[in-house]
């Protein structure tokens, strides 16, 4: 069974899909991965700032998700649940080592969006500086900012992920933005 041969599981709703995963139905967990891999990868990338680590962390997230399926109560969406796992995996990683941030030259496939070459270069440079600055933030501030800014999670949802309160999340977002401003300086 290849990852793309998900067959009839594609028509299942989220709850039924989890049941199918628990029943080891062919293609069920593959479909979970397919639906959420990009979001999880992007979250991990924003945390660690480079493709290699983000790729490894993403795989780790889904493996942990598979192992923890039986504990998933369905009280949140699969996406929120996966984000929670991803944040914990990333927090453990950044506390273990300082991740290298990818230099501008090593960036992958680009979406040119009809820009001029100089506009594209400026955008890349700004983006790289922002990502590098985010990677320097304290872990919880980084997590709160990433989840709020790029994954559109509510403060309450983020509080659930970080085992915190909505008020603490807002404070983390505030301090993260202040820290980002300080790091980016004149670039803003």
């Amino acid at each position: 069974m290849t990852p793309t041969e998900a067959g009839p599981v594609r028509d299942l709703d989220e709850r039924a899909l989890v049941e199918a995963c628990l029943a080891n139905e062919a293609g069920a967990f593959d479909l979970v991965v397919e639906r959420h891999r990009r979001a999880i990868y992007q979250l991990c990338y924003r945390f660690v700032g480079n493709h290699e680590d983000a790729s490894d962390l993403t795989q780790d997230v889904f493996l942990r998700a598979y192992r923890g399926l039986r504990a998933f109560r369905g009280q949140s969406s699969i996406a929120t649940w996966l984000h929670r796992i991803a944040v914990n995996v990333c927090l453990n990683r950044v506390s273990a080592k300082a991740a290298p941030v990818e230099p501008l030259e090593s960036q992958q496939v680009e979406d040119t969006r009809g820009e001029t070459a100089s506009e594209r270069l400026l955008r890349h440079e700004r983006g790289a500086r922002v990502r590098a600055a985010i990677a320097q933030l304290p872990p919880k501030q980084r997590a709160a900012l990433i989840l709020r800014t790029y994954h559109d999670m509510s403060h309450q949802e983020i509080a659930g992920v970080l085992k915190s309160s909505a008020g603490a999340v807002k404070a983390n977002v505030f301090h993260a933005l202040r820290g980002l401003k300080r790091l980016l300086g004149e670039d803003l």
Partner: protein
Amino acid sequence: MHLSAADLVDLAEGARPESSAPHLTTCAACRIQLAELRATMAAAAEADVPEPSPLFWEHLSRRVHDAVAAERPGGLRWNWLPVYSLAGAALLAVIVFTGVRIFVRSPQPAPSATALQTRPAPLAALDQDDGAEAADAWRGDVWLTFVADLAAGIDADAARDEGLDALNADEAVMHLSEGELRELERLLQAQIRESGD
């Protein structure tokens, strides 16, 4: 009393209108803070994640698929690795000793056994430092063939009665570590010399 961090974040995100914070009309410091927060948010929002190669996503899904398959109960042979690593060399040697006795005494020619007894020149030469890696690969192939031949000659039912899984002996060779392979080689050569006497 200045606006709190939570107030400023709510205002910057547009979760509440500025009219709900009349303090802003009289406090330049809070207005500046709010403007800076909005500018930083806008800059952060523009920072995309570089899109990886289109092949990356399928490759990632495949890696996850394989890792998950390896964890399933009754899943892959990889689950047998710890058994083979810890006791596999000894168990395999017992299986193979039986096969060696049958094989060496067989009237049919045994090219694999002959190759091992005479220790072919390429293997000897490759035991030098430069060729260590190639020698290991060659050594594994030779033993794999030899063990497969021996295992084919073993009575599987009899072996199973003795608690041995002879049919997987050749597979076991594939998963032995370098140290285990060397030990197996030593044991087999000793047994071949003894059986040939």
